[in-house]
């Protein structure tokens, strides 16, 4: 008969807790959800001797005093409230090289009334710093078993499991807070009981007493009556007058105890090995050198996501194309084929194509985070980010959004403060992502003159491209600023951030995190993107006039003529030997002409289908809306069709302008078509003038044309409110921006 034991892992950030969790549970992990928060529920399993362990990894924390819903989950789990987790024991993971501060949360955990075991991790790092820890003395002081571990090398794991198997006793609190405090806690507990009839744990009552941000007050578990509130403020007043004000009384008492026992458990050797680390930090955080290193690293990350992903993305693209072609070949033309090829395969493809970028970004982010550099990057960028009301940790998510907003938004998880995280996510899509590039390139090449300005230093086309990126950034700054002042107004959160020791990153850990996040993306956002792509496909496919191909074929009588000629010549060549070579040559020419005409005709058919479809009709209907931006209805369709995914726009324009739809931004034919396109009602007036091209580009720069991004935003914010808000604000800004661009362009050109 197996023992079932649930162990909860807790500890400061940067203690190697995740590595230990991985070492304990191996591949036996799954990630779930706690309702209402973005914290992931990480669960693992491990069998050892007669026991089956369920391991829950909680987010790293410095203290058990919650100030946000995410932090509260930890407390809820530990007190077995509303989370379906029944902890039987707590495993505190402590960084041996940082004992003092790490012990803070340990002393709190000991008061929970659960068995506690400590894993003294990173002992190799401690040794390098010249620190020696007397483990048995530590055990005696804390009253809990302590096991030395090196999670990255899987040292001590067995010993740890053995200790957990022996089911340690519930420890008694080691830190005693002042008597006055305990008295007030008892009084409050009585008041709580009398109001609600529940008997709360001492721990919970003391937390309420200490929580001067009154965050816990808002929770439904706590008494809401006036009587209790009065008692609470009364208690706090009393404590203040007795010289033990909250919240200071807790940290003071705990650190007093910690500093008292520290000499009994820790010895520092004479040599100061932190010299090397100091030197490295002085370099990396130096005004000049640090900034340069930072810039270089950012360029590397950016390039990696932009370019290293490209070959993989091409491969994926090809793979899906081949799939599509195979299906078409096997099934022939028809609605079902189109649904599968242009709908399903294209839909799934459009999700999977993001994977290389996401994986690469998360690899770099995980790597930088694990080796400890991320904190330094945030430190360097904090001042600049602060000017717009963000904090340094927003920098990496926003930078990655230049490649693709999806991993960027997911990377915003590192920002603890909810408001800052939200603002970062909301402006991330304004960073011109790589999907906008095809549009920029196409329109710039087609409409912006290839001239050099400033004595050959700059090229107008290049300048335009950069300008589009700048537009995104400038607008983002403005939006962030406005958001922080209005909708997401709030106190700037403290930027109190630990700068962890440098260490060699645990690549296995990084890879696993990367794979996990990639899979999450596919699963979550994938379903939505897929659904919308099918919808757009349907709108662009139906209704189909079955007579249409015949009608168009009738416009190409030459085609049937040619076919007849080829047949005749073929017969002749077979019979007379003399006409052989000439005949073959003529056949070849004719076949060439046939091919050309056939492509033209096919393209005319697709174009016609598109125009008569729901999408096409919509384009014509909204033409009055887009006219002020200088666009005609064809551009309108292309923009609507690209709402789920920007990349679609180039292909769609190809189809609309009667090309095969396989065009890309480099394609000369599409470019020429754009240059030659004229208004339906004014055949002399070209559509794609400079102001029009600019207004389209600005629209794309500011518009939220990416269902995938909105889907990921929904996942990260747990509500549809924010993605909808983003869509609305960006589309509005895009429209206004395009209009302004067009108007000023016209004015500029005329003036």
């Amino acid at each position, binding site marked *: 008969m197996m023992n079932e034991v649930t162990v909860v892992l807790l500890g400061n950030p940067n203690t190697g807790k995740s590595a230990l969790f991985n070492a304990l549970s191996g591949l036996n992990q799954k990630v779930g959800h706690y309702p209402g928060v973005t914290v992931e529920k990480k669960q693992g399993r491990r069998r050892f001797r007669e026991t089956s362990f369920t391991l829950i990894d909680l987010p790293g924390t*410095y203290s058990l005093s919650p100030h946000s819903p995410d932090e509260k989950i930890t407390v809820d789990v530990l007190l077995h409230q509303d989370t379906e987790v029944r902890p039987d024991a707590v495993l505190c993971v402590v960084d041996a090289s*940082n004992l003092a501060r790490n012990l803070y949360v340990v002393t709190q955990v000991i008061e929970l009334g659960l068995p506690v075991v400590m894993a003294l991790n990173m002992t190799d790092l401690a040794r390098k710093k010249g620190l020696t820890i007397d483990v048995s003395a530590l055990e005696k002081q804390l009253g809990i078993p302590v096991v030395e571990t090196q999670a990255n090398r899987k040292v001590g794991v067995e010993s740890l499991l053995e200790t957990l198997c022996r089911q340690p006793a519930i420890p008694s609190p080691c830190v005693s807070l002042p008597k006055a405090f305990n008295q007030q806690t008892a009084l409050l507990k009585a008041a709580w009981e009398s109001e609600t009839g529940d008997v709360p744990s001492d721990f919970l009552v003391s937390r309420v007493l200490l929580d001067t*941000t009154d965050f816990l007050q808002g929770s439904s578990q706590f008494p809401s009556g006036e009587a209790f509130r009065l008692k609470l403020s009364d208690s706090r007043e009393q404590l203040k007058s007795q010289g033990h004000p909250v919240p200071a009384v807790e940290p003071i008492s705990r650190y*007093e105890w910690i500093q008292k026992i520290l000499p009994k458990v820790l010895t520092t050797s004479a040599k100061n090995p932190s010299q090397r680390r100091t030197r490295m930090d002085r370099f990396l955080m130096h005004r000049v050198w640090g900034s340069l290193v930072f810039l270089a690293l950012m360029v590397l990350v950016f390039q990696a996501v932009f370019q290293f992903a490209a070959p993989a993305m091409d491969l994926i693209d090809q793979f899906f194309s081949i799939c599509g072609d195979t299906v078409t070949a096997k099934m022939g033309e028809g609605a079902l084929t189109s649904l599968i090829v242009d709908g399903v395969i294209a839909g799934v493809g459009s999700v999977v194509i993001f994977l290389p970028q996401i994986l690469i970004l998360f690899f770099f982010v995980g790597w930088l985070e694990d080796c400890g550099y991320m904190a330094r990057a945030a430190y360097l960028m*904090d001042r600049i980010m*602060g000017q717009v009301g963000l904090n340094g940790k927003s920098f990496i998510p926003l930078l990655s959004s230049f490649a693709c907003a999806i991993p960027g938004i997911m990377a915003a998880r590192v920002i603890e403060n909810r408001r800052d995280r939200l603002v970062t996510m909301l402006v991330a899509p304004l960073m011109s992502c790589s999907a906008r590039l095809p549009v920029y390139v196409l329109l710039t090449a087609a409409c912006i003159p290839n001239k050099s300005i400033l004595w050959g230093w700059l090229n107008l086309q290049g300048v335009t491209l950069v300008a589009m990126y700048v537009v995104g950034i400038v607008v983002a700054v403005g939006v962030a600023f406005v958001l922080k002042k209005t909708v997401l107004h709030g*106190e700037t959160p403290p*930027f109190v951030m630990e700068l962890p020791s440098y260490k060699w990153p645990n690549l296995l850990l990084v890879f696993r995190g990367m794979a996990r996040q990639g899979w999450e993306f596919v699963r979550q956002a994938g379903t939505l993107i897929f659904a919308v792509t099918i919808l757009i496909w349907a709108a662009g496919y139906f209704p189909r006039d079955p007579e249409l191909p015949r009608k168009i074929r009738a416009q190409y009588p030459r085609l049937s003529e040619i076919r007849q000629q080829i047949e005749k010549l073929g017969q002749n060549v077979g019979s007379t030997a003399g006409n052989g070579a000439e005949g073959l040559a003529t056949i070849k020419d004719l076949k060439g002409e046939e091919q050309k005409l056939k492509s033209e005709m096919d393209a005319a058919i697709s174009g016609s289908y598109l125009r008569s479809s729901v999408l096409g009709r919509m384009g014509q209907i909204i033409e009055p809306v887009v006219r002020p931006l200088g666009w005609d209805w064809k551009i309108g369709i292309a923009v609507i069709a690209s709402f789920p995914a920007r990349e679609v726009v180039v292909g769609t324009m190809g189809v609309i302008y009667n090309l095969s739809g396989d065009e890309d931004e480099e394609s000369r034919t599409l470019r020429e078509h754009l240059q030659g396109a004229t208004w339906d009602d004014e055949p002399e007036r070209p559509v794609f003038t400079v102001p029009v091209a600019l207004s389209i580009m600005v629209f794309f720069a500011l518009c939220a044309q990416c269902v995938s991004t909105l889907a990921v935003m929904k996942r990260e914010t747990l509500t549809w409110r924010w993605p909808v808000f983003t869509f609305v604000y960006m589309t509005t800004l895009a429209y206004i921006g395009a209009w302004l661009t067009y108007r000023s362009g016209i004015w500029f050109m005329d003036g």
Partner: protein
Amino acid sequence: MNLREGQTAIIDRVTGEDATAIRLMEMGFVSGVEVRYVGCAPLGDPLEFEILGFRISLRRRELQRILFRKG
């Protein structure tokens, strides 16, 4: 306050009762603890300190909450 790089000071207390104050105290900024100023970021903010054996980054605004003992 004006600290030079490498200088140390002893904390007297942290002012306020909000989340910033609580977070600072939980990280070790309590009376009697010694703090060493290591340096500052390129634009003068935030600042880097060493406390209880680890490094921490603080903005000037947060620093103002911390009162140090004289001498």
